[in-house]
C-alpha cells in the first residue's frame, strides 16, 4: 500500500488543479457589445434542470453578448443554499421564488421591484391577465413573474367511479357531496375513497377563500377569517371519514408526508381520489401508467359559497436586489415568459405558461397528461370557477404551518387528543401571535 501512495497523491494533485481555480469561465468577447454575465438559480428535478438549461442555451445563442452561469438544487436544499448565499451577499441575478417565501424575501429587500420594467416594456405582460400576475405582487408591487400557473385539483379515478356506479360530480360540488361520495366509494370498493392529504394547509386556506376570506389577513398580521366554524365542520367531517375508514388514518397520512405525487395511493389503486397541484398530474399519470384514466376536478366548496379554486402562481422568477445587471436579467425573464421557442423546450413542466400566445402554441405539442393540466387551468380561469388570486403567504407563515398547524392542531385533532374546536381556537391564537410578531 505504501508503494502506491505517492502515485495516488500525484494523480489526485494533477486532476484537481482545476478545482482550485474559481469555476466561472469567461467566454470570448463579441465584437462591439459588452459582455454581460448573468447567474440563475432554481430548484427542480432532473427534467426541469435539463429543460431550463436548454432554454438558457437558446437565449445565449440569440444573445451572444450574454453568458449564463446556472445553479440548481433539489427543493429541500434550495432554500438552505439561497439563504446562505443571501447572507454572504452572493446571490445570482435571477432566482426562482415561491409563494411561501416571496413576501419574506421582498420585505428583506432581496428582490428587485419589477414594475419599472413592465411599464417600460422590457417585460411584456400584454398577453396575460391579472390572475396570472397578482400572485407575484407584494404590497401592490410586482416582485416575481410566474413561470407556470397551477391550480389545486381533485384527481378522480374515473375507472373506480365507474366501477362503484357513482357519477362524476358537478363542478360546484360541496363538502357534503364529497363526504357522501367518499363514504360510498369506500363501502362499494373497499379502498380509501380519498387519499392522505385532506388536511393539507392549502385546503384550510381554500375553504375560506370560497367564503370571500382567506387563511391570512390582507395585512398579514393575523388569520384572515372571522369564524372558526367552517374549519371546525371540516375537521369533524374528516374525523367521521377517518372513523369509517374511508380516508387513511392519521398514522397512514403521516407516512405520506415526505412523498411525491408518484407515491400517492391513487397510483396503486388504493384510493379513488387524490388532491394535488395541477402540474403534478403528469408525474401521477406517468407513475400510474398510460392505461389509467383520471379526471381533474375543482375543489369541493362550502355549501352556498363560491369556488375554492384560484390560479396559483406555481413558481416565479425574480431578479435579486444584489444583481448588477437587473435590466438584462429582466430581459431574460421576458424571454422565458413570452418566447414560444423557449417554452417549446420547457414544455409546461412548471405549470401552464401565463402568456396566451404561448399556451396556444404549446397545445398541439402536449402529452395527454399535460393537455389535461392545460385544460384544467383554463377551466379554472373561466368565470365562476375560481376566486381572485390571494396574495402570497405573509412573513411567518412557514412558522405557523410547521410549528402550529401540523404538530399542534391537525395531528392532535386527527389522533383524537383534542377536539376540532380546541384545535381551531389554538390555531387562531397562535397564528395571530406569530404573524403579528408578538411571539417567535
Amino acid at each position: 500500500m505504501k508503494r502506491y501512495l505517492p502515485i495516488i497523491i500525484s494523480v489526485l494533485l494533477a486532476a484537481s488543479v482545476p478545482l482550485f481555480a474559481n469555476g466561472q469561465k469567461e467566454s470570448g468577447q463579441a465584437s462591439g457589445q459588452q459582455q454581460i454575465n448573468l447567474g440563475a438559480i432554481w430548484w427542480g428535478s432532473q427534467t426541469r434542470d435539463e429543460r431550463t438549461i436548454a432554454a438558457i442555451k437558446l437565449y445565449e445563442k440569440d444573445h451572444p453578448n450574454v453568458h449564463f452561469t446556472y445553479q440548481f438544487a433539489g427543493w429541500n436544499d434550495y432554500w438552505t443554499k439561497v439563504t446562505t448565499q443571501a447572507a454572504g451577499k452572493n446571490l445570482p441575478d435571477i432566482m426562482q421564488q415561491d409563494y411561501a417565501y416571496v413576501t419574506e424575501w421582498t420585505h428583506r429587500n432581496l428582490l428587485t421591484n419589477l414594475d419599472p420594467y413592465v411599464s417600460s416594456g422590457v417585460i411584456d405582460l400584454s398577453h396575460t391577465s391579472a390572475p396570472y400576475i397578482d400572485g407575484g405582487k407584494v404590497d401592490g408591487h410586482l416582485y416575481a413573474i410566474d413561470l407556470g400557473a397551477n391550480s389545486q385539483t381533485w384527481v378522480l379515478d374515473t375507472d373506480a367511479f365507474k366501477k362503484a356506479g357513482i357519477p362524476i360530480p358537478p363542478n360546484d360540488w360541496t363538502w357534503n357531496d364529497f363526504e357522501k361520495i367518499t363514504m360510498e366509494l369506500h363501502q362499494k370498493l373497499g379502498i380509501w375513497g380519498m387519499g392522505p392529504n385532506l388536511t393539507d394547509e392549502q385546503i384550510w386556506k381554500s375553504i375560506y377563500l370560497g367564503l370571500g376570506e382567506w387563511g391570512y389577513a390582507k395585512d398579514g398580521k393575523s388569520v384572515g377569517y372571522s369564524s372558526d366554524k367552517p374549519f371546525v365542520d371540516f375537521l369533524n367531517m374528516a374525523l367521521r371519514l377517518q372513523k369509517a375508514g374511508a380516508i387513511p388514518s392519521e398514522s397512514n397520512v403521516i407516512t405520506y408526508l415526505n412523498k411525491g405525487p408518484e407515491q400517492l395511493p391513487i397510483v396503486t389503486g388504493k384510493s379513488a381520489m387524490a388532491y394535488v397541484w395541477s402540474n403534478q398530474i403528469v408525474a401521477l399519470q406517468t407513475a400510474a401508467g398510460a392505461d389509467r384514466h383520471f379526471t381533474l376536478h375543482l375543489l369541493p366548496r362550502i355549501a352556498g359559497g363560491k369556488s375554492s379554486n384560484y390560479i396559483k402562481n406555481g413558481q416565479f422568477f425574480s431578479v435579486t436586489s444584489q444583481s448588477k445587471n437587473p435590466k438584462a436579467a429582466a430581459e431574460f425573464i421576458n424571454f422565458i415568459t413570452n418566447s414560444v421557442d423557449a417554452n417549446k423546450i420547457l414544455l409546461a413542466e412548471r405549470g401552464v405558461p401565463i402568456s396566451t400566445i404561448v399556451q396556444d402554441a404549446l397545445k398541439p405539442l402536449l402529452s395527454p397528461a399535460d393537455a389535461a393540466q392545460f385544460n384544467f387551468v383554463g377551466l379554472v380561469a373561466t368565470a365562476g370557477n375560481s376566486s381572485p388570486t390571494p396574495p402570497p403567504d405573509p412573513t411567518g407563515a412557514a412558522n405557523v404551518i410547521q410549528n402550529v398547524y401540523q404538530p399542534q392542531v391537525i395531528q392532535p385533532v386527527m389522533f383524537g387528543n383534542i377536539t376540532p374546536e380546541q384545535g381551531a381556537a389554538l390555531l387562531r391564537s397562535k397564528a395571530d401571535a406569530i404573524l403579528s410578531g408578538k411571539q417567535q
Partner: protein
Amino acid sequence: MNPKVQNDSPIGAAIAPMNQRQSVGNSLPMSMRQKKRRDLAKSTLFHVLVIASGIIMIYPLLWLLSSSLKPRDEIWNTVTQLIPHHLTIQHYLDGWSGFGGVTFTTFYINTFIYAGFGTILAVVTCTTVAFGFARIRFPGSRIWFAVMLLTLMLPVEIQIIPQYILFSRLNLVNTFVPLLLPRFLDQAGQAFFIFMIVQFIRGIPIELDEAADIDGAGRFSIFTRVILPLIQPPIVTSAIFSFYFTWGDFLTPLVYLNSPQLYTVSLALRAFADPSGLTDWGAIFAMSFLSLIPVIAVFIMFQRYIVQGISTSGMKG
C-alpha cells in the same frame, strides 16, 4: 488472574498467525471424529446465524438494486417484491447522463478527488495531532482536548453561515478550498478520529516510548518508528470512515459549489428529487446503488489492514 501476565514482553508481539490458535476450551479429551463433528456443528451454526442476520443487514440494499432495475411504472406497484417482473437498465443510462451535459463521470471524478484528498489530508493530520494529545504532557493539553471534543457537539448547520461569509469574502466560493481546508485542519468532524487514535495510542505501553527515548530517539522518531506502526488499525479505520463520510457529505458541497461541473455525486443525487414535479426514482435508485460501490470497494481493499493484527518484529525484549 492478572491480565498483565508477563511484564517484560512487549504487548505488540502478536505474531502468531490466527489460524494456528487452538481452541483449548475444555480439557476433556475427545476423539478426532467427535471433535471434527463438533467443529462442523459450530461452524454451521455460525454460518447460519451470520447469513440470516446478514440478509437483514443487506435487504434494503437488495431492494435498492431491484428497484433500480424495474421499469418506471412497476417501481411503486411492486414494492414488496424483490425480483422484478421486467428488467431494464434504462435507469442507469438515464441517471448517468446527469444534468445539462454534465454526466456522472464528472460527478464521480469530483467526488473521488474530494474524498481521496480529503481523506489523506485528514488522516495525516489527525494522527499527528492524536500523538500530541496522547503522548506529550504539555500545558493546556487537557483544555484543548476538551475544546476539541466540544466542537463535535455543535450541529454543523449552525456553523455554516459564518464560515460561508468568511470564505465568500476571500472569494473562495465555487472552489474546493472551503471543502478541503477544514478537513486538512481537522475542523470538519475529524475530532472523532483524533479521539479514537488517542485511545488506541493509550493502549500502547509507555515502556516502548521510554526504551526508544533511552536509545536517543527524538519525539518525532518515537512517533514514526514506535507508535505509527502499532496504530495501523485505527489509522485504516479512520481512513475508511473519512472516505465514507466525505463521499456522502452534501451540506458543504451544496453551499459552496455553484457550477454543476463541480458537483459531487451526493449533491447530484439530491438534485434529482423534487416533490413538486416529476422525479425519476429509477434514476435515483440506479445512481444511488452505483455510488455505494466505490465506498464498498475502499472498504474491502483496506479492511485487511484493520484485522491483520499488530506485528513488531525486532522489538522484543
